[in-house]
């Protein structure tokens, strides 16, 4: 009898642990959205087949993978959606937060289209495939996807070269660090993430040849417990400047501040979270871009515009920005960073100008070469001086 019970217990412990692992891996709860089947809207779109994508709608839809108050990625996009609301009072702005990167996103978008949206902004990297599916069914709807590498007839992607301000933040970090050890808490190994880590390290090394950047993957876009673990672990190992590629950024910045190390922000200016340790950061400025994209689509000019393919806004376009400096950053460091910023804007400085070596010393960008944006967005290596592996 006891034996049998124990076997049973074993079975469900295995089950419980499986659930635990699944839950740890799945950072977003199912949220938002319409409840009807995706097929329901197919018939409606048939009539709109000939109209220019984006015209004739009564609403604009935005879907976010997280919440609007995350001091991060989603908050930046949310602020952009508010600018659209202000610029187009006649258009209803539909928003759905916490939309997972699954077929659920398709349902949410279909619902928005049923509610009159002819323009949709799927704002997370993983919303691309669901958006492509919906775009195929609705040729009269214009889609602007944030950060995607694939496009369609009526789906363009937009993004910013955030690695430019990250490079500048790396310069500040390299100058300010006393130990020369920098830490980068990252999520999952996608090219965007690797590119940013590389930019940060190259920036730091441009002013401190001995600077290293330790990379820690959390496997999630927003898991405060794991973020606090990662930040503490890096600090214990002697890192004195921490930055991150996470969607919610508050926990890491606050942890760094409490433990007395410096931080570099991401997505938005979060200097208020770290009055002592804040150096600077990189942030998105989507407002003007979103308004302009909506204008182009509403006027029926989506096709042939700069937004119908892969649009990338740069530091010089003010799409990506360097955040304000913290109170404890000395003037000479500020001046140096500003000088490099001017050089980036006028094109005399390129963070990835060859030679760029990877961790094993192989030359990835040859002397005198400048990589294209497409090449950079396909980054699959970490540069010299980065400590840590790309998960395979």
């Amino acid at each position, binding site marked *: *009898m*006891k034996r*049998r*019970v*124990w076997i*049973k*217990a074993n079975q*469900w*412990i295995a089950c*419980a*642990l499986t*659930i*635990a*692992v699944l*839950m*740890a*891996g799945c*950072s*977003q*709860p199912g*949220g938002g959205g319409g409840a009807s089947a995706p097929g329901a809207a197919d018939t409606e779109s048939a009539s709109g087949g000939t109209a220019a994508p984006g015209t004739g709608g009564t609403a604009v839809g935005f879907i976010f993978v997280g*919440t609007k*108050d*995350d*001091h991060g990625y989603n*908050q930046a996009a949310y602020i952009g959606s508010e600018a659209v609301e202000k610029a187009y009072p006649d258009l209803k702005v539909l928003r759905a937060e*916490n939309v997972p990167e699954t077929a659920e996103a398709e349902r949410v978008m279909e619902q928005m289209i049923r509610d009159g949206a002819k323009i949709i902004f799927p704002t997370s990297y993983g919303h691309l495939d669901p958006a492509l599916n919906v775009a195929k069914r609705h040729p009269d709807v214009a889609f602007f996807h944030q950060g995607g590498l694939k496009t369609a007839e009526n789906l363009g992607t937009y993004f910013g070269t955030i690695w430019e301000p990250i490079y500048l933040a790396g310069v500040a970090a390299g100058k300010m660090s006393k130990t020369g050890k920098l830490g980068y808490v990252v999520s999952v*190994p996608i090219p965007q993430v690797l590119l940013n880590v590389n930019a940060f390290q190259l920036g730091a090394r441009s002013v401190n040849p001995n600077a290293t950047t*330790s*990379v*820690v*993957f959390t*496997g*999630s876009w*927003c*898991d*405060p*417990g*794991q*973020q*606090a*673990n*990662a930040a*503490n*672990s*890096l600090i*214990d*190992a002697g890192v004195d400047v921490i930055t991150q590629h996470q969607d*919610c950024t*508050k*926990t890491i910045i*606050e*942890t760094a501040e*409490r433990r007395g190390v410096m931080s570099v922000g991401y997505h938005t200016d979060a200097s208020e*979270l770290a009055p002592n340790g804040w150096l600077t950061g990189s942030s998105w400025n989507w407002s003007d871009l979103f308004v302009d994209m909506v204008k182009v689509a509403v006027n029926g000019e989506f096709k042939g515009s700069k937004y119908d393919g892969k649009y990338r806004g740069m530091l010089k376009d003010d799409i990506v920005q360097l955040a304000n400096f913290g109170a404890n950053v000395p003037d000479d460091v500020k001046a140096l960073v500003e000088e490099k910023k001017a050089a980036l804007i006028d094109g005399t400085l390129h963070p990835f100008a060859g030679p760029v070596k990877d961790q094993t010393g192989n030359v990835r960008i040859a002397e005198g070469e400048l990589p294209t944006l497409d090449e950079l967005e396909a980054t699959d290596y970490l540069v010299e001086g980065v*400590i*840590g*592996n790309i*998960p*395979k």
Partner: protein
Amino acid sequence: MIADILTGALRSGTSVMLASQGELVSERAGVINLGTEGAMLAGALGGFAVTVWTGNPWLGVLAGGFCGMLIAAIHAFLVLTCGANQLATGLTIMFFAIGLTSFFGREFVSQRIVGFNPVPIPLLSDIPFVGGILFNHDPLTYLSIALVPCLWYALFRKRLGVILRAAGEREEVLFASGINPKLVRYLAVLAGGCLAGVGGVQLSVAFTHSWVENMTQGRGVVAVALVIFASWKPARAMLGAYLFGAAQALQLTVQQMGWPISTFFLFMVPYLLTLAALLVVERRKQSVTPEALGKVLAGDTGG
């Protein structure tokens, strides 16, 4: 490096440890509560919210414990009064609580609090090696450590413990001595939910100073598994929780070493290591499943 990992063990293991002690109380009385994850979440949110409103983290602890208790009360009512299946009910409550706390927690995501901070214990924290690992934590961590021997004493040396365990082993004995076993189970489930809630508070108000939807990320489920592997013994559940925390710290340290081990594999390490170590411990002794619990696990309905 070893000191870092052990410090990390306490830092990230404490929330799991509190939840597992709570689950242990509940299971000793014969009720398994898979909704522990939900009670943790409710505690994490309730504690965070009250800390935001009042600025006092201790009031947050009380509120978090109460919220955890509320979630556990749903479980107790459905299982003990309505006779619902314990496992199915617990799972459902877990997902219910994830949705509920996401909904009510929205406005707290960007809020900032002055929560619990590490308080080094004078003299003791200056002891080399051990001092940093054991005596430089937040007050909730100290309390949680003190809780374990107290719980052991109450369970195995006091009449209260005998009554609790009798509810999980031989309820007819309780009947004979004029005590209502259902009432004992109710109280045990509520106490368990309260401890899980305080575990949630430790996560949100002490460890991360943040609230984010679904922030427990399966820690409550790990706590439930730990209790069974720990053969319902408080000290073993504590060790298991710290081992889980240590493994999390270990995988982060290994990442920084740059060793060629896949990070995706490292993500599994906390679960694998906890599983393996507790299995080894368990092998050496016959299982001591509380009998009422055994019936639940064997597929009989609870109640």
